[in-house]
């Protein structure tokens, strides 16, 4: 089957990044993030002409996936589950890299939901602050403040880890 509408290319380029971003946004359940990504991609396909014409189709799919996850994670304890290395991280990665990533994700999982989402948009999807603001429907200053707050908390928590 050809790719006349460009969806196959979008899928190949964006799906891994979307799964990673949603994994971060939801606090660590990569399987749920993958399900949400696929669900969001199906919804994108239902209205692909409109979605592909958007400034950032990837941001739209992420937002749909995020909403899907919010409906799925109905228990706080589930949502705040820490990332599980054996389920999440690349087995080929170095043990030091895995340890460092685990430490980071544990800190990210402690962030408020909105801050985690902003971190995912900005640093995993790679949107600019203005694009994140557009995707969330908030002012750019709000995104800047959330990022600043998230970075401060992360630095603090990571410093505590090092001190232990």
């Amino acid at each position, binding site marked *: *089957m050809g790719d006349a509408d460009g*969806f*196959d290319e979008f*899928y190949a380029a964006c*799906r*891994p990044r979307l*799964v*990673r971003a949603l*994994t971060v946004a939801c606090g660590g359940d*990569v*399987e749920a993030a*993958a399900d949400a*990504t*696929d669900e969001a991609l*199906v919804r994108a*396909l*239902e209205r692909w002409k409109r979605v592909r014409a958007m400034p950032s189709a990837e941001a739209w799919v992420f*937002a*749909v996936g995020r*909403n899907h996850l*919010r*409906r799925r*994670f*109905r*228990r*706080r304890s589930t*949502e*705040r589950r820490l990332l599980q290395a054996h389920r*999440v*991280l*690349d*087995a080929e*990665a170095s043990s030091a*890299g895995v340890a*460092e*990533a685990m430490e*980071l994700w544990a800190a*990210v999982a402690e962030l*408020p*939901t*909105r801050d985690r989402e902003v971190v995912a948009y900005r*640093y*995993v999807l*790679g*949107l*600019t*602050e*203005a*694009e994140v603001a557009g995707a969330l*429907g*908030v002012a*750019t*200053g*709000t995104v*800047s*403040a*959330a990022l600043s707050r998230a*970075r401060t908390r*992360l*630095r603090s928590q990571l410093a505590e880890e090092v001190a232990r």
Partner: protein
Amino acid sequence: MSEDPRHGDGPGGDVVGSDDDALAARIRAAAELIEPPTGAPVPVLRRRAQRRVRRRRGLAAAGSVAVVLAVAASATLLVGPNHGRVSVAEPVAVADRALGRSPGVAGEWTWRDMEALKSRTGKASGYGIREGAGDDLLVYLDESGVCLDGDSCRASADGFGANDLRRRFVARNGGPAAPLIGPGAPFAGWDVAVVPGITGDLHSGRQSGVDVPGGPAGQRFVGSENLDLVLAWLAEERPNTQRVVLAGSGSGGLATLLATPQVERVAGERLVGVIANGGAVPGSGQIVPSCVVRHWSLLWGVGYPDDWGDHVPDPSTKRLADLYPYLADRFPNVAFAQLSGTDDPTMRALFRTGTDQCDQQPAPVTSAGFGAGVASLDRRLANLKGWEFFLVDETTSAPLAPSDGAAAVPGFLKWAQTLVEP
């Protein structure tokens, strides 16, 4: 590492320091270590999408249900300890009871028993559904009074079942929601979900085993959790819902404002409108004493959202009246309507109730004081994007009254039509 230029820290407020650069780089590197599971291949996704589109078109051709989510409860912008996180309990088995049609209304009404949905005294309840003719849903939060002290608790409802739905809504063309969902009303063809008000907490509570000072003991203020349950069911059974409007009358009007973030977390971008038929919060510290809000917080386990300060003009203060700018800034794509009488006896009573917990008794809310407060609110909302304020010179708790309908409030029908049009 990605060389995507979007990762760069460039102009436009994205410039950060070297420590921040290092942290951002660490996040990106750690993200690369997340191994995405193999997903469904594109052809499978395409087939799923095609099936859904066909199904939706088939349903539309058959005149299928539009879901009108009419939240008829009293919801507050205040949120519980789980604020910001979805905390919907798993839906439990429900039993449907068909209730027939309202006179003059095409849709079938059904009552759904839900064992897990409890009143403040622990009685099992459920919610009502009216099937419409499309994929749009009105959630109606029914009012019930509030439980803040002995007198108010005695006066507030603590149970609702199929017979109540039949009597209050089905037999009366939508009852208190008739101006919105009855024959000829703006949302007449939408699906409607009626969430009963049975917890006396403006649908906002998340606290059980509460002894009310001067009132009953062991109360379950779980209105927000009940709403989560209903929303979870609606999301499961109506995945094709296109648009959602949240509405409520009387104290339910205030409830809708408070429940907006909760409904948006489930409906997402499909939430297009919020209609508060009554329940206005005048912006005066005298009319809405902070001690009343503190009392709500203590009894019902609610508080201001974490991101309150990001969306109100003065982050250093917490005033309930700032829910208007909060909602406008937080949900810029949602159209909000606040309706109010110049004298609202329900709201005047609500803002007095519970003040026995304050060190200093606030001044009674007089009719004149309330009128001045909503006049001030009228001026304030005139300059607030996203809000429309409909003020009628009457003593009423719900300007859209079933007897007069929406036409009695000048301009409202025209505003509502903008939500209904495709």
